[in-house]
């Protein structure tokens, strides 16, 4: 890792400067994470008096538990749906705004603000819009013969949280795609235009391939977002239900640990989640920094 050509040579000062950040990181990040790993291999009696080492029991149980596997599968469906929906819309808006030179800034303002809406508020807004008795959308869906009921229908509940989560993330993707599109060399676009390819063809054969680093980066960020930052949406609207239909992995850790006080299983779930984040972070930093070559 690089530093400056010239540096200061105090001995104590750098440690003092780093102390607050490192202290917080060690106490509130690394120590708890280590505790989670440790207690995922232990069983505690209900009163917390003694703990026994149980090896991989919690993990074996989890991976054999249909509820957990279900939750894993649902989280995957949730993450992929939100990511695809938010990225496709973000890209479509970015491509449209990129075409307009004069009003680009105006439309950007119109499209970026949902980023600032808190997930819990986003959840409540969409929940209200989909509300069975007063909501606007069920009223329209009824005309198409769909009886909307996210309190009973698991698929409906899942669609609700997908829409709420994707809605919040569109502006993020939009901004990154727009920045990516604006850095596509104008000479390439002009050359293609002279060779007779229209706007749609240019988008798919020039802009889109050149955007692949951005797309890849956003894919990782979006999956990460959907898995970890959508807890408030689930907690405020469906509460994981009906019948576990919207219990994501993070929500299950919270329910089993904080609400259900099943420490061993909750810790094992935490550790599995940590492995997922580590994988995502590794992929992000290992492959995204290098950029796809063109």
């Amino acid at each position: 890792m690089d530093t400056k050509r010239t540096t200061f040579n105090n001995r104590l000062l750098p440690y003092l400067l780093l102390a607050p950040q490192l202290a917080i990181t060690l106490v509130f990040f690394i120590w708890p994470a280590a505790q989670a790993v440790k207690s995922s291999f232990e069983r505690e009696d209900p009163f917390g008096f003694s703990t026994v080492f149980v090896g991989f029991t919690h993990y074996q149980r989890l991976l054999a538990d249909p509820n957990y596997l279900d939750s894993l599968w649902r989280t995957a469906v949730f993450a992929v749906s939100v990511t695809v929906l938010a990225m496709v819309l973000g890209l479509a808006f970015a491509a449209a705004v990129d075409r307009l030179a004069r009003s680009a800034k105006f439309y950007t303002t119109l499209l970026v603000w949902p980023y600032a809406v808190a997930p819990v508020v986003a959840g409540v807004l969409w929940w209200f819009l989909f509300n069975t008795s007063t909501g606007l959308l069920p009223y329209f869906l009824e005309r198409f013969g769909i009886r909307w009921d996210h309190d009973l229908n698991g698929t409906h509940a899942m669609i609700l949280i997908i829409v709420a989560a994707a809605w919040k993330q569109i502006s993020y993707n939009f901004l990154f795609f727009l920045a990516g599109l604006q850095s596509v060399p104008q000479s390439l676009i002009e050359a293609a235009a002279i060779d007779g390819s229209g706007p749609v063809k240019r988008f798919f054969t020039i802009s889109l391939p050149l955007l692949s680093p951005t797309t890849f980066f956003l894919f990782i960020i979006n999956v990460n977002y959907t898995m970890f930052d959508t807890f408030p949406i689930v907690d405020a609207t469906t509460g994981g239900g009906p019948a576990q239909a919207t219990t994501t992995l993070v929500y299950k850790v919270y329910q089993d640990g904080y609400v259900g006080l099943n420490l061993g299983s909750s810790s094992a779930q935490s550790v599995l989640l940590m492995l997922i984040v580590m994988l995502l972070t590794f992929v992000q930093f290992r492959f995204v920094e290098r950029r796809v070559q063109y």
Partner: protein
Amino acid sequence: MVENRPFLTFLTHAFLILGFLVVALPVYVAITASTHDISTLMSGPVPLLPGSHFIENYSTILTSASAAHGLPNYSHMALNSLVMALVITAGKIAISILSAFAIVYFRFPFRQVAFWIIFVTLMLPVEVRIMPTYKIVADLGMLNSWAGLTVPLIASATATFLFRQFFMTVPDELLEAARVDGAGPLKFFRDILLPLSRTNIGALCVILFIYGWVQYLWPLLVTTDPGYYTLMMGMKRMVTVQDGVIEWHLVMAGSVLAMLPPILVVVFMQRLFIRGLTETEK
């Protein structure tokens, strides 16, 4: 633009306006719903035009509505959210800029280790270490306190990386000149680096303020004393009613007020916001 295609340009505008309308729909409905009384809302789909209860609903939510849910006053929760967001913003920026300064401008044993320890925080969001972190905070006696609400959230790898990245682009000559003139590290930091970092600090302020304002899981874990409830928790409590109807007109008024501050920040500081967003994540 390469060629002039009026029809395509028209379509582009139409698509963007339609897109905006769809994206704005939930917020528009929230605003209209917050101007009706509950009986209008309960008697069928939400009216698409504003009603006449605007002042009544907003004054109810600001003065008395939350008490019915065992919550403190709305303005009290808003103040809690504000304090929390500001402390997190200031704390994250302060400790990150100091660590980046140490990492870039000093050579010392364990520098690499320090860097990796900070990096690891990226891989450990609160969501994956709920129980053990809660336990530490409880053991330290920090439940139901401002320290418990904010301190564990102010470690920041992304802000540290942003400052590190920026410091690497500051010309070495500045440091050499400062040293020739006899400036020590702290003087160099205060008089040269800090002023140069103004734009980055501004961009981070916008992003981190939003981050702090929308926090949900952490306050939920560490506060049981309603005096520390933030707006986000208040919103959740107001829609969790055991029996009876949700007071949608008040919930919507509360939601509109709760999303206003961060939206205003984004709209009015758009340049800093975009800069902060695109530079912190890489």
